[in-house]
């Protein structure tokens, strides 16, 4: 619905013909029988290369479902998704996807890394899914650790030896080291303390600039997406309520729900709890 807006906000970098991600009339139904729910309804938007879209929604909005659809973990019922030129729709067989196409940074820093494997092994698995040999890729791994501001010695450590923020850095490195065409970050800061959130967000903003990432950044918190997004999509109850450039969303929201979201952020000018 807002493809024009997205295309209009062009960046300086050279943009390939087609956008990195096109979501067109996407509909997803979860469950069956009495438990059946429509998680997504007619959602359309695009993400051009080297651009970042922030996807905001509260619980039940379908934002995680959308991430899973892009990752191929949830089948499509109606509409289609084109990622890096590859089309996926209801009929698409569930064949394996090229890991270079899309990578997901998961939400929970405690569940995103296997407790029994070192940080180095986690990255090695991304680089070489079959063998996952950390020694073979040592220099590449160290290079990535440096990039996410972790010491090289981190490679030999196990997840429980890291703080939550550090784990998310490892998860970010793991997702980026395959150089996917698009990265989906699903609520990656929601479990962290505020100051740590800021650090991770700054790191991500920095990497975005450095690597020209194409990214879908998902959060329940409107405030979080601001520093890492070019455009913002607001999702509610499976429908896209608003899609626009980040300044426009924050300064002149068109949708009533977006305004309410903005006003609900503590500290925002519209935030009132005492009459």
């Amino acid at each position, binding site marked *: 619905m807002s493809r024009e807006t997205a295309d209009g906000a062009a960046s300086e970098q050279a943009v390939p013909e087609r956008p990195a991600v096109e979501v067109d009339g996407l509909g997803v139904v979860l*469950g069956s*029988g*009495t*438990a059946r*729910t429509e*998680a997504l309804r007619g959602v359309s938007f695009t993400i051009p290369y080297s651009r970042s879209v922030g996807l905001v929604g509260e619980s*039940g909005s379908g934002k995680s479902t959308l991430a899973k659809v892009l990752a191929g973990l949830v089948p499509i019922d109606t509409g289609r998704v084109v990622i890096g030129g590859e089309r996926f729709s209801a009929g698409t067989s569930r064949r394996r996807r090229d890991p270079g196409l899309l990578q997901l940074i998961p939400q929970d820093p405690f569940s995103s890394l296997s407790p029994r494997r070192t940080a180095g092994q986690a990255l090695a698995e991304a680089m070489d899914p079959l063998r996952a040999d950390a020694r073979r890729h040592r220099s590449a791994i160290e290079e990535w650790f440096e990039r996410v501001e972790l010491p090289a010695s981190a490679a030999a450590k196990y997840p429980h030896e890291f703080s939550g923020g550090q784990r998310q850095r490892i998860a970010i490195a793991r997702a980026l080291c395959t150089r996917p065409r698009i990265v989906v970050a699903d609520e990656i800061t929601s479990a962290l303390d505020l100051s740590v959130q800021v650090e991770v967000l700054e790191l991500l903003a920095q990497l975005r600039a450095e690597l020209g990432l194409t990214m879908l950044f998902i959060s329940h918190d409107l405030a979080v997406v601001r520093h890492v997004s070019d455009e913002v999509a607001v999702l509610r109850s499976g429908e896209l309520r608003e899609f626009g450039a980040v300044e426009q969303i924050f300064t002149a929201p068109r949708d009533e729900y977006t305004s309410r979201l903005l006003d609900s952020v503590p500290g925002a000018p519209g935030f009132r709890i005492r009459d």
Partner: protein
Amino acid sequence: MNAITTRPWPAFLLRKAAELLLAMVALVVITFAIAHLIPGDAARVVAGVDATAEQVEDTRARLGLDRPLAAQFWDYLSGVLTADLGESFRTGQPVSEVIANRLPFTASIALFGIALTLGVSLALGLAVAGLTRGNRNPWLDSAFGWATGVVLALPVYVIGAVLIVVFAVNWGVLPAAGADSLYSYVLPTIAIALGPIASMSRLVRREAAVVLEQDYMRTARGRRISTFRQYAKHAVPNLLASTLTLSGLILAGMIGGAIIIESVFAWPGLGRAVVDSIIERDYPMTRGIILTVGAVAVALNTAIDIILALVDPRTLRAGKVLA
């Protein structure tokens, strides 16, 4: 996404019924097969050790063991459908009658046993969990470990023998064997329940240690209600799911224990009968009893699933809680 489904019960019950049916069909096939897989010639065993070849063949014909397997299976299957499990090779008595006579004895000690187990282990497990919270009373911790460990490691027949020696032979306060009066039930029930009490109270204690750490227990403490009320009203309901799930397994284990304990106490239940029937190659009896035990186990399992769903509606869709 907490969509509350409107009517999960019919679907749940339907699924359970289908499972039950499937299990019964499998049981019928398996029970037919096992009797024939047990080595040894039933006709020979029935005719007697010293019988002549001719007598053995006569016996074989009399028992219908000379007929093709398919025909025997058909007889069995149609018999099962009409609740006719055939006649014992040994006594010629209808198997269903034998089972009807003996099942109540096994069922009663199993049920008394499970009731005793549930009651004692909930109280014991909770008490120990409460008393050893936060590393308090470490001696109790090890005492509990040793006591339950020893009881669990002792075979049920040794426990039974010890109980008999102490209570029946030395003190003479309870009968040593038989099923004559209500007193007769005391020792077999205790013997059969001690092991399960040990394992269940270990489970309760382990689960309770987790439950007592839960936020809602702190909430309850915040209401400053008595410790007893905290445990009885707030902790116990949350232990029911796992204890019930385990009690299904324990009931199965009790039926296994019954096989052994019944000969120690001369208990006229199914356990002794199934062992005897296997040794005597009494196929219809073996089949009938195993079919019954299996059916009871499956039915109990289903019943426990349903009770679980009543106790904790979340399991309606989520399936079973881990044992």
